């Protein structure tokens, strides 16, 4: 626009991802919306009426328009679909106040109305600069090296190239595939194929999760601390969830907060379901019944006992087992009471 001082308002047509795809300057009131070509904003949308809606400076057209509006007025014309104003539906023939920044939906078209008198939000910090290969490659290489060592441990000394092929081809390919999928999501929502950025997210986090699996079990074994091994397993799960959240936030940064909440809720729900099912099956909250990693000779600093001490230590199992048996008896008695009337009715009907 050549003379922005004459701009009374700005209509922003928003795209699918919330970005502005088109703007319409408002130099005179009212601003009308509809399919008819005589509207200020023509919307080529079959779910929009010919004269679908209008934005006016005041509710009373006889009143003069304030010089710098902070709130306008929406009037909906003769339309079967109405206008969605925020979370509210305004039916045909109705009207509603329209604060600056309001988002309207007419048919499938989403508009935002900005008024001249609006107070601008403070400038936001710019997003992090795109990751570079130099910053992401080291983590990826360390991760692959660590996994290679882990794979080497499972092979016999005289293993030939055969057992290595699956690892050499499969593991990097899996990492690349993971990052490509997320990069495609970035392409979809941000119009850029940010493979390096997603590699920069995945590689250090996968490395952290793998490192937890390499370091924590031997330390837990040396300390004789099953709780530490369990904590390490859960920490790896948390790192996995953190990775997913980081990827999602990188794809849609404007929803970072919602993804955080969603990730937290998913983690809590998932963990609860897992723990409950685990407890029903194994009568324990831990994912493993005992410390499965054995300590290296000479590294063990945990508790030590005698044969008799260990046998007496096992006496502590008796109480919980007996309680579980009592609970099973109560459950069976309850089940029998509920089945018996039904069975009696069934037998009586024969």
């Amino acid at each position, binding site marked *: 626009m050549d003379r922005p001082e004459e701009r009374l308002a700005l209509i922003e047509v928003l795209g699918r991802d919330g970005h502005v795809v088109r703007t319409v300057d408002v130099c005179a009131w009212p601003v009308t919306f509809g399919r008819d070509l005589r509207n200020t904003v023509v919307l080529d949308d079959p779910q929009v009426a010919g004269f679908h809606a209008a934005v006016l400076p005041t509710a009373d057209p006889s009143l003069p328009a304030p010089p710098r509006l902070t709130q306008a007025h929406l009037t909906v014309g003769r339309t079967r679909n109405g206008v969605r104003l925020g979370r509210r539906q305004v039916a045909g023939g109705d009207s509603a106040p329209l604060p600056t920044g309001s988002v309207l939906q007419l048919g499938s078209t989403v508009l935002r109305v900005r008024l001249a008198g609006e107070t601008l939000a403070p400038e936001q910090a710019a997003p992090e600069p795109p990751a570079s290969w130099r910053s992401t490659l080291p983590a990826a290489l360390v991760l692959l090296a660590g996994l290679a060592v882990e794979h080497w*441990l499972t092979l016999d000394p005289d293993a030939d190239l055969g057992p290595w092929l699956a690892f050499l081809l499969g593991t990097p390919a899996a990492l690349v595939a993971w990052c490509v999928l997320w990069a495609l999501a970035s392409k979809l929502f941000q119009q850029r194929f940010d493979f390096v950025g997603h590699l920069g997210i995945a590689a250090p986090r996968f490395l952290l999760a793998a490192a937890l699996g390499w370091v924590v079990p031997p330390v837990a074994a040396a300390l004789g601390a099953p709780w530490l091994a369990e904590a390490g397993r859960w920490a790896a799960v948390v790192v996995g969830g953190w990775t997913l959240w980081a990827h999602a936030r990188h794809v849609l940064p404007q929803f970072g907060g919602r993804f955080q909440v969603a990730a937290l809720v998913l983690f809590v729900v998932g963990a609860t379901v897992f723990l409950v099912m685990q407890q029903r099956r194994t009568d324990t909250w831990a994912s493993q019944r005992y410390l499965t990693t054995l300590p290296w000779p000479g590294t063990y600093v945990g508790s030590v006992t005698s*044969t008799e001490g*260990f046998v007496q230590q096992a006496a502590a199992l008796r109480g919980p087992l007996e309680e579980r048996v009592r609970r099973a008896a109560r459950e069976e008695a309850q089940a029998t009471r509920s089945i018996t009337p039904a069975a009696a009715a069934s*037998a009586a009907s024969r």
Partner: protein
Amino acid sequence: MNPMRTFLRCLLQRAWAAAAVGSWVISAGAQPAAPRSDASRAAAPASAAAAGATARDLDSRQAGVSSTAQRIYEQTRGRLVQVRTLLRTQDSQSSVGSGFLVSDEGHLITNFHVVSDYALRPEQHRLVYAAADGQQGPLELLAVDVVHDLALLRPASRGALAKRGAVAFRRGSEPARGARVLALGNPLDVGFAVMEGSYNGLAERGFVPTLFFGGSLSAGMSGGPAVDDTGRLIGVNVAARRDGEQVSFLVPAAHAQALLQRARDAGPLAVPAYAEVTRQLRQHQDLLVKSFLAQPWRAAGHPRWRVPVPQETYLRCWGSGTGPEAPGMRMERSDCEMDSRLFVSDGLLTGYLTVRHEAYDGGPIGELRFAQRYSASFENEFFQNDNRWRTAARCTENTVQREGLPLRAVMCLSAYKRLAGLYDLSLLVATLDGREAGVQGRFDAFGVSFENAQALARHYLDGFAWIDPKNASR
């Protein structure tokens, strides 16, 4: 360690409602050696004349064999019944076996496993008999002997089977090896039949004594009588090995007689028999554990560690291993299991012990790889999850010093939900002193009291030690 092989005792074929005689099936890896074939070639006739004479001998022997069977069948037929367990709400049977009269009043003997559904859930089942002459009627359960797999029954209508006579108990000495034995019953619900076989004495390594019957026992013959050629009871059909041919087992008649004497005047059991079954199992496990603890461990033959291996009094041990030429980590394994197990119900066999160990030599692969695989083997163990019979296993663990030898020990116990005071013990042990070698052992006891579980754990741990402390790592 690899998952423990399981013995499956398939006693009743639910699939087509025919009772099965108990059978043991041993999974691959523990098969007894196949019989040699050269013995049969040596027995072939040398000439045509000899062949003709041999054929005449066979004819006369077959006539004697079949006439005895005919006579015994006719003599015993009126005292045979089929025992059927039916659901109360419908007429379909959940199990079927055989039984026979042991008194003039109409007392019947069968196997416990034939009537276990009724014994443990009488509110859902009922017992009926079907005699060879077509007479049928309801039955009452008077007593059970879980350890010997026997049950004493009586017709609900007093006198229904009276005056038919009884199968007499054999008195005096036991038959000679090879003596003729005739087993009767109703195989596969096809009809009453007689099977001929031979008497082979007590089955070896059985903690609960059973007789080895060289003949075929099919499903449905459970609980039927096995008699000598005068019709006197030698044993009660109970089980067969499906991994062999004509390898079957009988409960010695003395136990059936004892059950009759104990309970012939008892009233019918109307409540679930869990309390009585539990009492008998507790008695059995006390004897078993006491006997087992009295036996010293055998040497496993390892140069560095003393590893507990049981005497083969009533356990059989099988060994396997990788040869010295095999690549990678070398391993030798020993599996010792009891053959005899006590049947309580489908899905519950108890009253037995297993002991196994694996000795690893990681010299060819180095310390790092050995450590990884040794731990992986220690992790690869299954413990009981919660099911309708047992609670989930609860475990305790620690490092145990056995005369200076460090052992990692994990002891898990699961309790029987309906057999109060009985537990399954699993004890996992691994030596911790070797950088490139180690031994992992596992001891399992099924259906023992808590105190006996502790005693067995103590006994097993005490079986580990260094053989030569000078060679051991500290």
